[in-house]
């Protein structure tokens, strides 16, 4: 994976110095809170309901064991012994003191980490397929492009005060594991008929209040023009994106209002101009980065045989282990969704254990998935049982990947100052209701996503079952959506009827799963049955 050179390190060190100075000026009172707020946000520091929250960047979700260990140590040293992995492949700490934040950034900088642009109206941390470099179905590892993009977007002087936040996701497989079409820009590495590699640009997707699936703006871009094309995409948005209403300021609204064709025309015109300016890093730079993402030294003698005589282990292998491109290897997903737990949370000890497992068994690499789990991308199949035993002892071996209890949930009203309703207790109650793993497996793949407000941080629009918490006359109320999906079959869920109380929403979901079990054909998933039979049978069972 990518290692900082002296240039990258100098940039991060400069940021620590700049931020420390800003905090000192705030504490001294020479910066007002209004002036300080956008500055701290660009360092991922939010003021939440109970304390400051610090969001640390994990660029394209990839990190090594040294970095992971530091994340655990920070949880112990500055927080309450745990951290929260997010849908943006980052980690958040919920109980931070303002005066500690410069020291945290200094600690992070010692392992090449930071909180740069993890909030604010700027280009956010770029996300990527969490199976990048390991998936059996990959055309190309998207991370070299993501790293090139990381560098270009870091402290970009023209695009630091955009109309609104800006999120880019990049994938290199036909299978979309990054919800790419629901980002401001989604980039897919593709091959044309001549076998040449190119980049397909989707622009103007997003969730939030007004969910939209991004249209294709450029079908095939030569990879060595990526930065120039991004400059053009962002420039048109910065100049013309709406600033009169923050809820209409994302690029999806611009693309929707002027139309994809008009946006494309403007971008192409600007792109032609930008190509004359030689802003693109040379081919050698992409090659330098690619060289750091070459395959680790896979053992050619690794075997595919796994002893599955332990039934609990066999269950976990079946549910949480994916095919790897190298023979004898597998991709392990460590579920951070134990029944009764908080989705995405991990203790400092758990974080350090996962770091050790990555060091010893996964070529020193880990990934954070947007589904708030941790991935060990390169594991020898012959090591799986030993890894599982250690995970199991640390309560990290829940075999529920992509099942109904593998819930994405935002922090909600337990932490977040924007939330209208709590998300965590709802997730816990659903997981408890369906705690029997056999029952969960009978229901099959069922992606359930919960947001505690309309901003949709819990991706409720993209859940096969989505839950949106709202405030109804001072009471928490939960709306139920069906039919959302991310990936190749991206679709947006629809609200099916009146909302529910916290207990009522759990009952409603149980009724919906009963309908599915009664109506499904062959190997249909919940989403497939829903798409085939429509809303009516579900509404009748739930409201009837």
């Amino acid at each position, binding site marked *: 994976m990518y290692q900082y050179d002296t240039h990258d390190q100098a940039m991060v060190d400069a940021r620590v110095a700049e931020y420390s100075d800003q905090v000192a000026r705030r504490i001294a009172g020479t910066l007002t809170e209004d002036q300080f707020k956008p500055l701290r946000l660009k360092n991922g520091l939010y003021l939440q309901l109970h304390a400051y929250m610090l969001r640390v960047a994990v660029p394209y979700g990839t990190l090594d064991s040294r970095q992971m260990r530091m994340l655990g140590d920070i949880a112990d040293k500055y927080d309450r012994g745990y951290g929260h992995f997010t849908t943006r492949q980052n980690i958040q700490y919920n109980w931070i003191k303002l005066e500690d934040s410069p020291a945290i950034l200094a600690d992070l900088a010692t392992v090449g980490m930071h909180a740069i642009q993890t909030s604010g109206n700027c280009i956010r941390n770029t996300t990527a397929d969490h199976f990048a470099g390991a998936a059996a179905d990959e055309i190309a590892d998207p991370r070299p492009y993501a790293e090139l993009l990381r560098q270009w977007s870091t402290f970009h002087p023209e695009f630091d005060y955009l109309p609104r936040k800006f999120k880019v996701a990049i994938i290199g497989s036909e299978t979309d594991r990054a919800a790419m079409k629901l980002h401001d820009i989604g980039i897919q590495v593709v091959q044309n008929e001549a076998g040449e590699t190119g980049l397909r640009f989707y622009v103007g997707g997003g969730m939030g209040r007004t969910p939209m699936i991004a249209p294709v703006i450029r079908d095939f871009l030569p990879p060595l023009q990526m930065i120039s094309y991004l400059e053009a995409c962002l420039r048109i948005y910065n100049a013309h994106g709406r600033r009169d209403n923050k809820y209409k300021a994302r690029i999806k609204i611009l693309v929707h209002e002027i139309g994809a064709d008009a946006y494309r025309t403007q971008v192409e015109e600007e792109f032609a101009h930008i190509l004359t300016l030689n802003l693109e890093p*040379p081919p050698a730079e992409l090659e330098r980065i690619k060289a750091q993402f070459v395959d680790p030294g896979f053992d050619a003698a690794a075997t595919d045989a796994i002893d599955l005589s332990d039934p609990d282990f066999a269950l976990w292998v079946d549910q949480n282990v994916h095919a790897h491109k190298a023979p004898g290897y597998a991709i392990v997903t460590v579920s951070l969704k134990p029944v009764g737990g908080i989705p995405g949370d991990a203790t400092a000890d758990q974080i350090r254990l996962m770091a050790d497992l990555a060091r010893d068994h996964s070529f020193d690499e880990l990934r954070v998935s947007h589904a708030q789990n941790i991935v060990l991308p390169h594991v020898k199949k012959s090591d799986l049982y030993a890894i599982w035993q250690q995970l199991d002892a640390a309560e990290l071996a829940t075999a529920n990947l992509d099942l109904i209890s593998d819930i994405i949930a935002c922090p909600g009203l337990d932490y977040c100052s924007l939330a209208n309703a709590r998300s965590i207790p709802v997730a816990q109650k659903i997981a408890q209701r369906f705690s029997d793993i056999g029952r969960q497996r009978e229901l099959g793949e069922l992606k359930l996503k919960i947001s505690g407000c309309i901003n949709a941080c819990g991706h409720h629009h993209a859940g096969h079952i989505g839950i949106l918490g709202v405030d109804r006359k001072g009471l928490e109320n939960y709306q139920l959506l069906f039919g959302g999906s991310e990936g190749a079959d991206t679709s947006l869920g629809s609200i099916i009827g009146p909302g529910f109380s916290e207990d009522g929403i759990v009952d409603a979901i149980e009724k919906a799963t009963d309908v599915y079990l009664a109506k499904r054909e062959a190997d249909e998933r919940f989403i497939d049955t829903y798409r085939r039979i429509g809303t009516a049978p579900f509404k009748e069972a739930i409201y009837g």
Partner: protein
Amino acid sequence: MGETLIRLRDDAASTAPVVALADLASETNATAVRVLPGEDVSALLPLLDRLELVEVAFPAYTDGRGYTSARTLRERGYTGELRATGDVLIDQISHYHRCGFDAFLPNQPITRAAVDKAIATWPEVYQRTVDGRAPIWAARHG
């Protein structure tokens, strides 16, 4: 207002009256123009030769349209004074400078020393813009 103009240029400051962008075409003797957020600087491009001052207004520093206006003018060949006015704060100075601004007229006075320090915030830069700085990729590959 307590305004203090800080210029990073050696030539004399323009004393010409500053006209609105919409009036520039009809005010054929005008050499100084003000650009507001949302105004399209492409209207200035045919007139760049006669301009010695472009003021780009930042009514609120969080409105970043002026960065695109400035960088566009420099990319298209404007060499006169490019002045950021309004809610111009020290923490944005390095970005202004990287986008081509070479003069600042902030609502709240800031010192020349603070401006120089702000411009020196970043030891290196990742992007090629219009300030002439070589990006990190150039340093890596000569």
